[in-house]
C-alpha cells in the first residue's frame, strides 16, 4: 500500500481543522439535535463543504470537480467520523456521485453537489436487512416511462434529499442481480415518512404507489442498474468504513484522555493494567481497521479485481472495531459515560447506525466467505 502523498496529507489537514472546528459536536450534532431541526444536519455547513472543494472529490475535473478518488473521500470521512459531524457528504458526494458517473444525471446534479446545495440519498433496503439483490420494488413499463410500486426503508437523508437514487426491479426475480434498474426519483414523487434514528440523524421510509417516472429517470441502462448501484455501494461501504474508523478513533482518544485524568483509589485509573491492556488492544485494532479501509479505497480507485473483496473486509472490520471502541469507551468512562451530558455516548449512537448502513458486519463477513468460495 502506498503511503499518503503530500497532497493527500494536505487534504486531510484541511478536513481535520475544518471538521474539528466548524464540524465539532457542540456546534453541529448537539445543536441540530437539541433544536429539532428538520434536516438533522446544518445546511450552512454543507455549503462550506462545497466552498472548500470537498464535495468535488469524487466528481471528474471536466465537470468541475477535483477528480480525486475514494482514498481522498475516506480521509475526509475519517474526520467526519471523529467529530460526529452530521452531513450528507457520504450519500451525496461519494455514493450518489459515483453512481451517476458518466451519465446525464451527473450533468444535472453535479453542479449542486459542488456548491453544497444539493442533497442526494440512496434507496436500497426494503426490509430491516440490507440485501440489494433481493430488491422487489416493481418498476413496470408504462407508456414512455415506468410505474413504480413498493417500499424502501433506511433511506439516510431521504427526508431532505432533492433526489433519491432508487433501485427497482424491471425484470427477473428477487435474488437476481440482472433486472435491476436505478432511477433518479425527484423530491415530492414518492411518499416520504421522516424517521428519527438513534444517532439523531434523519432517514426516510418511502412508499411508491403507482408512482410514474419518465424513461429519462433511468440512471445507466434499464435492467443494468447493478453497474451504477455497485459503484455507489462500494464507495458507500468503503466510505462508511472510513467514517467508522474515525468514530472509533474519536471515542478511543476521548477514552484514553479520561484514563489519564480520572482518579480512584488514589491513582489515575490509567495506571491499572486491566484498563491499559484493553486500551492498547483497541489502539491496534483501530490501526488495522484504518489500513483495511485505505487498502480497499486504493484498490477501488485502481479498478483492481480484489477491490470488492477488500471493500467487504473493510466494512466488516471497521464496524466490529468501532463497536469495540464505543463499548470500551462507555464502560471505561463509568457512570459519566451513561449521561447525555457526556459526548462518549454519542459515539455509541453513531456507531450503531453507521455499522448498519450499506450492510452490517455479518452481511460483509458472509460476502467475504462467498467470494472466497465457502
Amino acid at each position, binding site marked *: 500500500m502506498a503511503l499518503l502523498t503530500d497532497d493527500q496529507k494536505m487534504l486531510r489537514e484541511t478536513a481535520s481543522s475544518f471538521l474539528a472546528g466548524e464540524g465539532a459536536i457542540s456546534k453541529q450534532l448537539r445543536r441540530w439535535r437539541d433544536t429539532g431541526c428538520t434536516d438533522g444536519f446544518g445546511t450552512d455547513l454543507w455549503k462550506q463543504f462545497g466552498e472548500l472543494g470537498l464535495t468535488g472529490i469524487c466528481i471528474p475535473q471536466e465537470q468541475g470537480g477535483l477528480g480525486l478518488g475514494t482514498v481522498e473521500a475516506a480521509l475526509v470521512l475519517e474526520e467526519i467520523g471523529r467529530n460526529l459531524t452530521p452531513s450528507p457528504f457520504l450519500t451525496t458526494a461519494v455514493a450518489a456521485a459515483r453512481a451517476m458517473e458518466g451519465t446525464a444525471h451527473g450533468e444535472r446534479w453535479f453542479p449542486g453537489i459542488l456548491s453544497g446545495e444539493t442533497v442526494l440519498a440512496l434507496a436500497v433496503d426494503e426490509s430491516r436487512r440490507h440485501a440489494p439483490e433481493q430488491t422487489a420494488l416493481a418498476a413496470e413499463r408504462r407508456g414512455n416511462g415506468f410505474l413504480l410500486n413498493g417500499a424502501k426503508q433506511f433511506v439516510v437523508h431521504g427526508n431532505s434529499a432533492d433526489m433519491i437514487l432508487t433501485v427497482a426491479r424491471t425484470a427477473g426475480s428477487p435474488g437476481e442481480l440482472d433486472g435491476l434498474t436505478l432511477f433518479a426519483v425527484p423530491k415530492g414523487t414518492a411518499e416520504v415518512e421522516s424517521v428519527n434514528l438513534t444517532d439523531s440523524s434523519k432517514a426516510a421510509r418511502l412508499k411508491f404507489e403507482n408512482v410514474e417516472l419518465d424513461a429519462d429517470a433511468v440512471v445507466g441502462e434499464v435492467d443494468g442498474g447493478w453497474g451504477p448501484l455497485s459503484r455507489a455501494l462500494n464507495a458507500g461501504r468503503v466510505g462508511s468504513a472510513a467514517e467508522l474508523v474515525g468514530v472509533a478513533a474519536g471515542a478511543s482518544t476521548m477514552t*484514553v484522555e479520561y484514563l489519564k485524568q480520572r482518579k480512584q483509589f488514589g491513582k489515575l485509573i490509567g495506571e491499572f493494567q486491566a484498563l491499559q491492556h484493553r486500551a492498547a488492544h483497541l489502539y491496534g485494532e483501530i490501526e488495522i481497521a484504518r489500513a483495511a479501509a485505505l487498502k480497499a479505497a486504493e484498490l477501488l480507485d485502481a479498478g483492481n479485481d480484489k477491490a470488492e473483496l477488500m471493500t467487504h473486509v473493510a466494512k466488516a472490520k471497521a464496524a466490529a472495531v468501532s463497536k469495540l471502541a464505543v463499548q470500551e469507551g462507555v464502560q471505561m468512562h463509568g457512570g459519566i459515560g451513561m449521561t447525555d451530558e457526556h459526548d462518549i455516548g454519542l459515539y455509541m449512537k453513531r456507531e450503531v447506525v453507521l455499522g448498519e448502513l450499506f450492510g452490517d458486519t455479518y452481511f460483509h463477513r458472509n460476502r467475504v466467505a462467498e467470494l472466497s468460495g465457502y
Partner: protein
Amino acid sequence: MADLDAFRSETRAWLDGNCPPEMREPVRSEADICWGGRNWTFQSEAQRIWLERMAERGWTVPHWPRDYGGGGLSPIEAKILKEELARICARQPLTSFGISMLGPALLQFGSEEQKRRFLPEIARGEIRWCQGYSEPGAGSDLAGLSTRCADKGDHWLVNGQKVWTSYADKADWIFCLVRTSTESKHKGISFLLFDMATPGVSTKPILLISGSSPFCETFFDDVKVPKDQVVGEVNRGWDVAKYLLGHEREMIAGMGLGGMGGLGSGSLGTALKPDNPLVRADIAEFDVDALAFAAMSERFFEMFKAGEAHPASPSMMKYAGTELNKRRHELIMAAGGSDALEWDGERSKNGKAARDWLRTKGNSIEGGTSEIQLGIVAKHILGLPGA
C-alpha cells in the same frame, strides 16, 4: 526507470539460469529450510548450489553493503529482487538468526573490525548463530538477567544459564546478553559474542507440548571469551538488545500472514471448506481480520521504511499477528474435527494439524509475551501513566 527495468530483466534472466528447479518447489517441512553453519548437511545438491550462487552475488542479504558480503542493492532494487524471486516461487537460499537478528545489530552497533569479521560469514551461511537472551529467572523481565560476565583482564569469564535458546544445539556461535555490572539493572548488561565450541558451553534440548525441540537450555561454566567480542559499549548492551527485539517482533509479526502472503493467495475458509455453518461464520470473521491485518502489515512496512512508524509499533504488530495466528490454528482444529487429533502416521502428516496448533501457543510468549507488548503500547504510544 530504464535502469530499474534493466535490473529487473537481468535479475530475471540470472534467476532463470541459476535457481535450480527443486528450489522452486514450495517448502514442505522444516527440513526444506536451509540454515547453514559449520555442521550443516545440505538436504540436496540443489540446496547447496542455490545458497552458493546467491551468496556469491551477496543476494542472501541483498540490502547489506558489498564490503560485508551483501548485495549492496538499493531498497527499490531489493524489492525488485524479492518480486522476481516470488515470481518463480524460489525458496529462501538461507534462513538464519545471523541475517534477521545479529546482522542488523552489528550493522548498527558493531565496530568496523567486527562487521568485517562476522557479517560476510553470516551472508555466506558459514556460521549459524543463536540468541542467548532469556534465563530461568529473567523471562518477561529480561533486564533482570544474571548470567555473570567477569572482567579477567585479558578475557571475559562467563558463568550462568540461558533458556529458550532457539537451536542452541545446532548453532556455531551465540550472541548473548550477560551481566557485566550489578550496579545498574539496565546499564549493567553487555552484548557478547562467542563460539559455542568454547570449553564450558553445553546445551540441552527442551521438549515442547508439540513434541518438537526447537529450544534449548544453555549452560555456561567458566567460559573464557576474548575481550574484543563485546558489541557496542560494555554495560550498554541493553540498547543493542532493545534494537534487536524490535527486529525480532517484526519478524514474528510477519507470521500473522500465515500462508496467505497478502491478498493474493486466498483465505483460510477456501483452504478448509468448513461444513458447519457456525464454524464457517467464525472462519469468515477470521478471514476478515486476517485480510485487514495483511493490509496493516503492508502499511506498516511502508511506514517503517519511510520512518513514519512509531518506534513502539512493532509491539502492536507482534501482538496482533501472533494472536491471529493462534486463532488460525484453533479454527484449523475446529474444522478438522477428529481427523485433526491424529498425532502421527502418514494420514495426518505426522500429526501436523495438532502439532502446529500446539506450537502456535508459544507465538504469543516468545519474543515478549502479548501482555508485555500491550504494556509497551500502553506506555509508549498511548502514554498511559505508570505502564
